[in-house]
């Protein structure tokens, strides 16, 4: 039986190595300076790059952070600082529901909310969808991190005459800031790879654009379009774009995970 279980471990690990291996083998060859600095060549021609998608992902994710992080962090602090409040219970429960909601459904919501009203696709709608996806994740890590702060620290600050809000901000949040930052990075890593909520919000585009009120390209969308398209050149670029995407996502999430683990070990 133990042999069987070791077999299961090997089978479970195979896809990871296969995927990473194939990405490097198929994608690394197409990485060049042009790939990072040029917009796409006309369909069917060789050359061209994905700078439009890289810029698009940075902008869309950046705006999502501006919307999502303050709400997620404020809600996380609230849940940790007022654990007996009824709102805390509701918020936690709703965050769990949102966490399990398929990202495509959140995309439909953002479409109905923003795109359908404005009557045109926009990067902003994509950012709103991604923000809604990141809020529950940020809330949970923030809350867990704040709960690790020993109560004696709060008591010390209060005993010195600090009002509650300064205790919360200058003592509690300050101590957990690295934890909150790494938690936010994890959430960013997760939404940076999301495709489904962007399909009919940011839509994608072939041009370099900085206008948040217009359709915009994003790396995951580019991977999808190129992978399902008919041209060899597109397929090569899809692999290369996927390699870039996975490098960003893995660096963010592995870094954040290692940092969180180190914190837990220090505290425990």
């Amino acid at each position, binding site marked *: 039986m*133990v042999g069987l*279980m*070791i077999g*299961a*471990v090997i*089978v*479970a*690990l195979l896809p*990871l190595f*296969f*995927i990473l291996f*194939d990405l490097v083998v198929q994608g690394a060859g197409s990485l060049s300076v042009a790939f990072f600095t040029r917009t796409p060549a006309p369909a069917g021609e060789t050359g061209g790059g994905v700078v439009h998608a890289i810029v698009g992902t940075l902008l869309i994710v950046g705006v999502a952070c501006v919307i999502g992080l*303050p*709400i997620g*962090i404020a*809600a996380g602090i*609230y849940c940790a600082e007022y*654990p*007996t409040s009824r*709102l805390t219970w509701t*918020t936690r429960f*709703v*965050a*769990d*529901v*949102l*966490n*399990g*909601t*398929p*990202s*495509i*459904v*959140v*995309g*439909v*919501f953002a479409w*109905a*909310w923003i795109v359908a009203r404005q009557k045109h696709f926009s990067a902003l709608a994509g950012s709103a969808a991604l923000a*809604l996806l990141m809020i529950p994740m940020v809330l949970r890590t923030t809350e*867990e991190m704040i709960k690790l702060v020993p*109560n004696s620290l*709060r*008591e010390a600050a209060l005993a010195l005459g600090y*009002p*509650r*809000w*300064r205790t919360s901000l200058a003592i509690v949040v300050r101590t957990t800031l690295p934890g909150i930052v790494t938690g936010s990075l994890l959430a960013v890593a997760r939404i940076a*790879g999301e495709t489904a909520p962007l*399909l*009919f919000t940011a839509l994608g585009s072939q041009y370099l654009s900085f206008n948040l009120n217009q359709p915009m390209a994003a790396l*995951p969308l580019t*991977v999808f379009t190129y*992978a399902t398209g008919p041209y060899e050149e597109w397929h090569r670029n899809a692999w290369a774009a*996927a390699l870039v*995407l996975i490098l960003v*996502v*893995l660096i963010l999430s*592995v870094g954040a*995970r290692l940092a969180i683990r180190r914190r837990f070990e220090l505290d425990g």
Partner: protein
Amino acid sequence: MATATRAEAPPPPRSAAGPPPLERTSHGDRVFKLILTLGAAAIPVLLAFLVVELWTGARLAVAKFGLGFVTSSVWDPVAEQFGAFPLIFGTLISSVIALLIAVPLSLGVAIYLTEFAPKALRQPVAFLIGLLAAIPSVVYGLWGIFVLIPILRKSVFPLLRDGLGFLPFFQGPIYGPSMLAAGVILAIMVMPYIMSVSREVLLAVPNTQREASLALGATRWEAVITTVVPYARSGIFGAVILGLGRALGETMAVTMLIGNRHEVAASLFAPGYTMAAAIANEFSEAVGDMHLSALAYVAFLLFAVTVLVNAGARLLIWRVARGSGAGSNAL
């Protein structure tokens, strides 16, 4: 002191006369609490908004098709006739295939990692499998199209047809993009979730249970099978249901591998469709209000199902992990 204890779990003792000490707050406190409350209240408000928007979007289709939408198989955007049965069927079948493959694997890994593996191996292996959860869905799709499907089409599918061809599931022409291919990629994608939650649940089983079983003369394997796993049973079940919730809503990889055809076929080699995939493919190019509304109806159904499935899973996990806190960390 009283202000500080308020921040911890037990409700504060309230004196009968006068406001409790905490109510005597400064101006800054009130502003600060107001900001936090706005943040916390925004989340339920957003969810309510989401439900309302989905329902409003689906209203046209709900009024026209009612509950018959779920059982009808027609999908004709030109004639504005819509039925979601093939989508629901495809969603269920692909998720079931995924669970059939992923559950034995992830339970094997979870049991091995908590009970048998050398200490030095536990964390790194769990970490590596956790990385699978970080890979974006669209990358799975890309890999599925160009690597997994050729492998399945050339070697695995013919093998299945030769060996199990007497079953209706393994008959018919082999295209490549198919229900089975989508199930396999889903299995890889949900495995890390089932593995990590059942691992947390197994870790939450008290050591005294293991010791008692071993003291009665059980071998390590017997202790695991007769004591540890039954103790964690409902939590493991919860982990599986949680995996189901993920599989039901997974979009991109499935869209790229399932073949996208509004059909109900017995053969797993045949292309199919899922609810999420239909929304992903058709929403941005829907031809009319009714088409859009039908897709919103599908989104609403998908949302309702995943909420139910996730709530069930959380309830089960919470029952086992109550007190240890492990279950909540796992989610």
